[in-house]
């Protein structure tokens, strides 16, 4: 469908990204990800023929896209740009109707088929109620929907979206994500989209291209290429880590507070405590976690010190001793309401032992507010 061959993009006197070989077929979503200024938009502008390629070719159905006339291209490809439009006093219907521009006659009159397509386009983005609403009265989410309906009314085969989620709240972001997937399958669209939110990209993309340092650093199925080293390197992260399991980042501990805390948790009960403690700069040791515990994943992403146990094995005596030693050298022990089963019985013993050792032990019962008060008491 859409294919770039050894493409180099850039402006008049310098190249931004070179050696781009991407391909996208019908019913596929290609997501382009990269740090600000890496050239995502430049690439998209070149595919959208706003810029001429410095080298290489972009093919649309094996035709050179830059040699098509604007009108021919408009029937094959439509775009939704980041720039906010201000078309003045127009209803949603008028806006979607503009999508019929390449098909209508000299005066832009709409035929029966055009009208049907307009209504159908609005329907497929759930925006029928917006057709009679005035554009300047719409919220950002509604505007984005109408602009996408407009793009659909163009009956394209390729849809290009430049950061469609930038102005949207969580609900609309998710709706848009689902919508794009739906459109790609129902309308047989090939969709190219740039995104800032990698967690969204991971969830909608069939193919993903990561751009950095003038080149594509990785290209393929997002599940294959979104590895910790690649993503960390992509954004030059040193104070946070990407986790493949979580599909997002966790901050690393800045370690500004002098207190050592031992956290006993498991089965996801400790994740929020870890986030709270790391955020506030405590030095945290976590124990004893099985490697298949979600708390383990979170803690590992934060690069915390974890006393770890192999999956599904009961906690060994050796690790128990190790943890007890750690507890002795810690100032505070925090334990959560973690479930206790056959393999983590020793964690319960750890809690009892630390109370016996007269450690300042805090039970976390789901409220960070209480936890904070108790920590402050200790510090005083």
């Amino acid at each position, binding site marked *: 469908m859409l294919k770039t061959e050894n493409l180099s993009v850039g402006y008049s006197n310098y190249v931004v990204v070179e050696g781009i070989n991407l391909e996208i077929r019908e019913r596929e979503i290609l997501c382009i990800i990269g740090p600000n200024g890496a050239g995502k938009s430049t690439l998209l502008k070149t595919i959208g023929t706003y810029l001429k390629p410095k080298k290489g070719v972009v093919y649309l159905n094996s035709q050179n896209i830059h040699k098509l006339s*604007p009108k021919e291209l*408009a029937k094959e490809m439509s775009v939704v*740009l980041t720039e906010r439009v201000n078309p003045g006093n127009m209803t949603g219907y008028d806006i979607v109707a503009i999508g019929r*521009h390449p098909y209508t006659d000299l005066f832009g009159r709409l035929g029966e088929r055009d009208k049907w397509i307009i209504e159908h386009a609005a329907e497929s983005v759930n925006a029928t109620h917006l057709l009679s609403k005035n554009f*300047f009265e719409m919220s950002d989410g509604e505007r984005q929907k109408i602009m996408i309906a407009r793009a659909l009314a163009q009956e394209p085969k390729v849809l290009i979206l430049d950061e469609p989620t930038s102005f949207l709240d969580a609900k609309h972001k998710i709706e848009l994500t689902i919508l794009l997937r739906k459109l790609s399958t129902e309308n047989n669209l090939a969709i190219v989209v740039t995104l800032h939110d990698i967690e969204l990209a991971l969830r909608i993309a069939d193919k993903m291209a990561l751009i950095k340092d003038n080149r594509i650093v990785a290209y393929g199925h997002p599940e294959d290429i979104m590895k910790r080293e690649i993503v960390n390197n992509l954004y030059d992260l040193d104070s946070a880590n990407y986790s493949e399991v979580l599909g997002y980042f966790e901050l690393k501990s800045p370690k500004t507070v002098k207190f050592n805390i031992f956290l006993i948790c498991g089965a996801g009960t400790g994740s929020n405590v870890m986030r709270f403690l790391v955020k506030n700069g405590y030095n945290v040791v976590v124990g004893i976690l099985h490697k298949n515990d979600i708390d383990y994943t979170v803690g590992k992403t934060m690069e915390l010190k974890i006393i770890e146990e192999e999956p599904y094995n009961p906690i060994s005596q050796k690790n128990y001793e190790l943890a007890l030693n750690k507890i002795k050298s810690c100032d505070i022990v925090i334990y959560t309401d973690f479930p206790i089963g056959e393999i983590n019985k020793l964690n319960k013993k750890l809690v009892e032992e630390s109370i016996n050792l007269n450690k300042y032990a805090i039970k976390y019962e789901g409220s960070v507010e209480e936890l904070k008060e108790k920590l402050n008491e200790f510090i005083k």
Partner: protein
Amino acid sequence: MNNISKNRYHGYYRYLVIITLFISIIILTVLGMYYGGNARSITLEDTTNFIVYQGKVTLNDIYHRITGEDLFNMPSLSEGEKFKYILLKKVRFPPILGAIIVGITLSACGLMLQTLFRNLLASPYTTGISSGVLFAVTLVIFISSIAELFSIFNIDEKIVAGWCGGILSLILLIIIALRVKEVNGVLIVALLSSYLFRGISSYLVANGQDLSIQEYFMFVVGSLTRVNLNNLPSLILVTIILMLGSVFLIKPLNALLFGESYAKSFGLNVKKVRVLILLLTSFVVGVIVPYLGLMAFVGIAAPYMARPIIKTSDHRWLLPTTMLLGVILMLMAHIVSLKYWVPIYYLYGINHPAQVLPVGSILDIVGGLLVIYLVYRGEKNIKMI
């Protein structure tokens, strides 16, 4: 389905607006002819009779040319009527038609440029054409040797000079328009070049004679007094060209509402349309301004007022509304300038008789107040480019 019925309602409303504006223009035309001079013997009835008579004559003429027969039996006129009709035709009619032409052309140009530049302050004069025209005319007014040079064409030398100035700045503008990526670059260059031309003009004005300065001033403000039956054909021709051209530009203009990047993705050849709009508007301005002087405000005020009235940015409706409103503005300003000029004469005790106010100054005052009021009333109207 609700939406479709709503659209139909909008349709009725819009037709109503257009018809109302059209009727007001006819009334204002008659009033303008009636107030158009000092001969008290001409009544309102005479004016309407004249319009009907003249209409019949024209139709008869056309019919006669095609079939060789007469359509109407023309009644013979009395001597008094003949005199009155000549007065109406030669003195009162040309400024009215001038006002109508200016109203149509400049307001339509203003709207097109506002949409092209996506800027409410764009007007036929921000393209720099008018400064070119003004510059050439200033040279003719103040430097007699240049005036002699232009007088060889046997037409008013100011008009010829204005055309030359217009063509020169047009060439400049097209070169810029083809080179600049961002359309607002054109706006900035045009604005700055107008300062350049003004600078040279003001040097000439500072050293000019009283009479030349008055002439220059009248040209800058703009007045309808120079329009006469001889130069009406070329003005009408320009208007027809503009109206035909604008019909072809309606669809591109609607696409341009979304900005140039989007317009391109709708299948529009943006550079071609940009040059086409600039070419058409500057051609119109270049031809009309030498006759009538700068009448800057109608190009800004008419589109501005049309938007809230017609309640859509769709140029299929907005463009005709703007043209009609432009005509109404011009006719009203013309009538006011004829009859109700402010008695500065009495206030300041000027000894020589006061001039009839140039229509441009009325337009600036009335239009300015109107637009300020509109901005004050609803900020959101500003966004309705």
